[in-house]
């Protein structure tokens, strides 16, 4: 895999200015529109994402729709996520410490993570099979990321077994049916493939970041972020390929983590 240094540098310079002029307001608009407490309709959200002067990031053919669906499928939900029992305790000092262990919660998160990894592997394969990827460096990038997602899934499967659970072997059905299938069908060129990959990696990285705050054991939090760090790296590399700021924020968000409808139960 090889990225052009000149391209990276050009992208950094150009994107800084673009970032300054558009991203803060754009982010605020998105936050307002997708805040679960607002009354924005799906149509309004889609219109916001498809504004003609927004970044090309959101304007790659059918991927505009895909991005809208990703955001709608992920992020905040008004309904609580999977049931958790006894996951928090209050210390005498007032801090909210993680519980000693909650098998069902942790296993569900692990299996959900597996489902995302499988989805990524399958989606990347669809992208490779589409014939739309023409550039060797892009093809190499996708193949590397795909192989790393396989490794992630293998680690997660062992971890699930380690906590006495049954590894999950299917792609995340919710994300697949609501987002990915349509997005893959709408792929039109190499750039649209990269955009889809970037969105997948964003969901993955946001999800692992979120689990770092909810897994009930330190070992599982380490496992999650040993993967989440790499998903963040994938995001940065794909941002570079798209000539976007490779590291656009100082903190990894969690708002695009997979939502409750995408959770995989323990059994």
């Amino acid at each position, binding site marked *: *895999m090889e990225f052009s240094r000149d391209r990276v540098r050009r992208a950094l310079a150009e994107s800084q200015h673009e970032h300054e002029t558009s991203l*803060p307001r754009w982010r605020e608009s998105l936050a307002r529109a997708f805040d679960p407490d607002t009354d924005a309709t799906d149509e309004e959200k889609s219109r916001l994402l498809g504004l003609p002067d927004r970044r090309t990031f959101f304007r790659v053919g059918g991927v505009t729709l895909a991005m809208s669906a990703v955001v709608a499928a992920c992020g905040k939900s008004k309904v609580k996520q999977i049931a958790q029992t006894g996951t928090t305790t209050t210390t005498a000092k007032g*801090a909210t410490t993680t519980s000693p262990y909650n098998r069902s919660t942790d296993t569900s998160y692990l299996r959900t993570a597996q489902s995302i990894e499988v989805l990524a592997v399958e989606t990347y394969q669809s992208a490779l099979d589409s014939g739309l990827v023409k550039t060797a460096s892009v093809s190499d990038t996708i193949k590397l990321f795909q192989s790393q997602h396989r490794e992630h899934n293998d680690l997660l499967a062992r971890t699930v077994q380690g906590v006495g659970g049954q590894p999950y072997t299917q792609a995340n059905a919710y994300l697949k049916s609501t987002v990915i299938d349509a997005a893959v069908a709408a792929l039109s060129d190499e750039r649209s493939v990269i955009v889809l990959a970037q969105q997948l990696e964003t969901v993955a990285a946001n999800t692992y*970041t979120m689990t770092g705050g909810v897994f009930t054991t330190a070992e599982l939090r380490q496992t999650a*972020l040993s993967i989440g760090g790499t998903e963040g790296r994938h995001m940065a590399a794909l941002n570079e390929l798209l000539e976007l700021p490779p590291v656009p924020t*100082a903190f990894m968000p*969690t708002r695009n983590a997979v939502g409750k409808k995408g959770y995989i139960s323990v059994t």
Partner: protein
Amino acid sequence: MSDRIRRLVDEVDEQHREGMRTIADHLATAHFDETDAARAASRRRFVRNLGLGGAVAVGGAVVPVSGLVGVASAQTTATTVVLPASDLQTVVFAQGLELALVAAYTLAVDLVKLETKVAEVFRLFGRHHTEHATALGSLAGASKVTTPNAALVSSLTPQIKALTDEAAATKFMGSLEQGAAATYLTALGTLQAFESTAPVSTILPIEAQHATVLGELSAQPVSEWMPAFQTTAGAFSPSQYPA
């Protein structure tokens, strides 16, 4: 000052201001996203504590929640949370590390002849570390530090002064970012409170992204900057660099 330089300075400042505006949002999301039962419970506990006059601060850091949590602070002027002592130690160490990284970037920009665009990357990443330090300082409360980790700065300064060119500087800063990401992964093995693990989990991937960008810029092997897993190898340790 040329227009180009002025614009770059403005951009960095805007980045910083934007970051400062969103820190509370990021941390509020990390701490109290209502989609997560555990964190929602944490938020409810914060709110409940308000009626009890706030948490009792014994043996740990008193955190001014008004600076951290938009949701909770919207309902009152301030309350507090106390981290376990071991978490506090880790958070303070991490804050000193972040400030040392800020100093390292500043020194590198000052001493090494860098292309404008590379210098811009260094400044941006330095700003990110400033924001991390600010967030961690908020967590550390009264125990926060205001100066970089002295032992680490002492170690890094001669190494940075010895950097001869841009490639060496980019490679070196990339190694520091790798170390920072490894440090946070190590920290996740000991942190106990959600108030600590959540923000650390939002910082680690950013250090990893920095390492990727700098590794690629310095033409390091792909395996160096795009590993399948983040590891704890090369982590900065409090025993080596006492806070």
